[in-house]
């Protein structure tokens, strides 16, 4: 390796290091930008569709935004009253639920202590109830903090459509600019990277979106049939959680199990809810996924789980959502740069 090559490599590593450090330093403000980039990426095929009809990109983006605005307002008119109704009923019923849970726990305590006296001797129930009460009291006192966090989230959601619009408008021009600047001899390699990453990411994101919507709708139907309260709210959560591979379906079922148990106060509802979510997952795995080919990311399950945990560690819930696509990008890049050296 010549000296110039060594200097170039050191320079490149330094630049990458500085970029990584900078991204880490500003990670707290990155979320709206990352979410906007993902949204712009998801929406770009629709803008491209209008563009291939001969419309300018800005006109295409404005048409798309108008359509989304109409759909959004329509959905709000239909869904928001239902969600607000469910949330207000939930908050009104919370004290009743708390005493009802206490009652159930107390009767369970009586039964178990009568059957197994050792539980009473060791004071297991008393200490558990005391710890739970302490935990609930602490968490309840922090509700104003949570509300403040929700408001800051809302401001992000106002910001996201604006940033997304500019990403949609300028994203393609940005890629074209980079494409023009790369040395011609690397054109085919860079084009391979752009197209293959686009293929993998496009399949992943669009597939996940369709799949999660289906899971959400099926969960709502299932919960309504079982008579579990707040079916729409829980169904939306289950649909969104389903975007996290492997762990999502479990996370989605937990609220349904809790609310179902509170309402019906028996074990059979837990079995019914688990059965319902299993059926939804069965339909998802055997009918929905094969049709939309969403999980065609060809990653080993252990890699996916590791990526999700690492994503959670680095960037919380957003990290969990984005970890798999990031691993897909890394894999596609390595496939081209290492296994297809002949392209370079």
């Amino acid at each position, binding site marked *: 390796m010549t000296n110039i090559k060594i200097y170039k490599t050191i320079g490149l590593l330094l630049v990458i290091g500085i970029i990584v450090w900078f991204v880490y330093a500003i990670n707290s403000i990155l979320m709206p930008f990352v979410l906007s980039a993902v949204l712009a990426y998801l929406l770009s095929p629709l803008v491209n569709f209008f563009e291939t009809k001969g419309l300018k990109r800005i006109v295409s983006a404005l048409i798309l935004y108008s359509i989304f605005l109409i759909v959004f307002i329509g959905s709000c008119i239909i869904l928001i009253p239902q969600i607000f109704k469910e949330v207000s009923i939930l908050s009104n019923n919370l004290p009743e639920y708390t005493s009802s849970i206490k009652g159930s726990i107390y009767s369970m305590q009586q039964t178990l202590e009568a059957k197994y006296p050792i539980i009473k001797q060791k004071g297991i129930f008393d200490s558990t109830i005391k710890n739970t009460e302490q935990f609930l009291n602490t968490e309840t006192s922090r509700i104003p903090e949570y509300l403040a966090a929700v408001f800051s989230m809302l401001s992000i959601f106002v910001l996201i459509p604006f940033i997304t619009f500019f990403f949609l408008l300028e994203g393609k021009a940005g890629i074209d600019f980079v494409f023009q600047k790369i040395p011609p001899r690397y054109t085919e390699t860079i084009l391979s990277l*752009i197209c293959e990453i686009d293929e993998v990411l496009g399949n992943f994101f669009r597939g996940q979106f369709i799949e999660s919507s289906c899971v959400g709708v099926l969960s709502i139907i299932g919960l309504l049939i079982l008579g579990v309260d707040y079916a729409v709210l829980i169904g939306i959560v289950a649909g969104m959680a389903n975007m996290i591979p492997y762990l999502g379906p479990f996370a989605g079922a937990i609220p349904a199990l809790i609310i179902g148990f509170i309402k019906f106060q028996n074990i059979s509802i837990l079995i019914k809810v688990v059965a319902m979510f299993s059926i939804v997952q069965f339909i998802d795995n055997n009918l929905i996924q094969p049709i939309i080919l969403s999980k065609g990311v060809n990653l080993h399950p252990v890699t996916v789980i590791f990526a999700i945990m690492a994503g959670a560690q680095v960037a919380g819930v957003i990290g969990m959502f984005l970890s798999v696509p990031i691993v897909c990008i890394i894999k596609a890049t390595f496939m081209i740069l290492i296994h297809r050296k002949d*392209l370079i």
Partner: protein
Amino acid sequence: MDKEFTEKVNFLKNIPIFEGLSNSALGKITGIIYSKKYPADELIFEEGKVGKALFIIYDGEVAITKASNGAEAKVIATHQKGAFFGEMALLEELPRSATTKPPTETTLFLIYKVKFDWFIEKDPRVGLKIIHNIAKVLSARLRETSNFFSKTL
């Protein structure tokens, strides 16, 4: 209607592999095309390297060169605006059979295989028409080569 878009569609209309396609289909093809400006004498692709893209000359010209038996590479053909090359890369991933360089500054349109495959999957009717046109071009080139060899025998 976007002027740049109309220009692109009118240009593609005259390319043999897009012969017989409607304006709407040509509009869709503009969505999978990348444009790139090459300075004079800059390498476009090299003989022996695996090809994965079709190139269409939008502006300028391209020289095809081939080296044989260790001798210096010779120009075997020159393509002008509207010509295309590397079409076999859309069908199979095999090493390029020649080297190409533009003698002057040239703008090329590139269609990458993955995007082309995706396009065929999305719109099989138009895809079939393009494949049929590519087959016609390859058949004509094979006939030319056979004629050339039969004359040299």
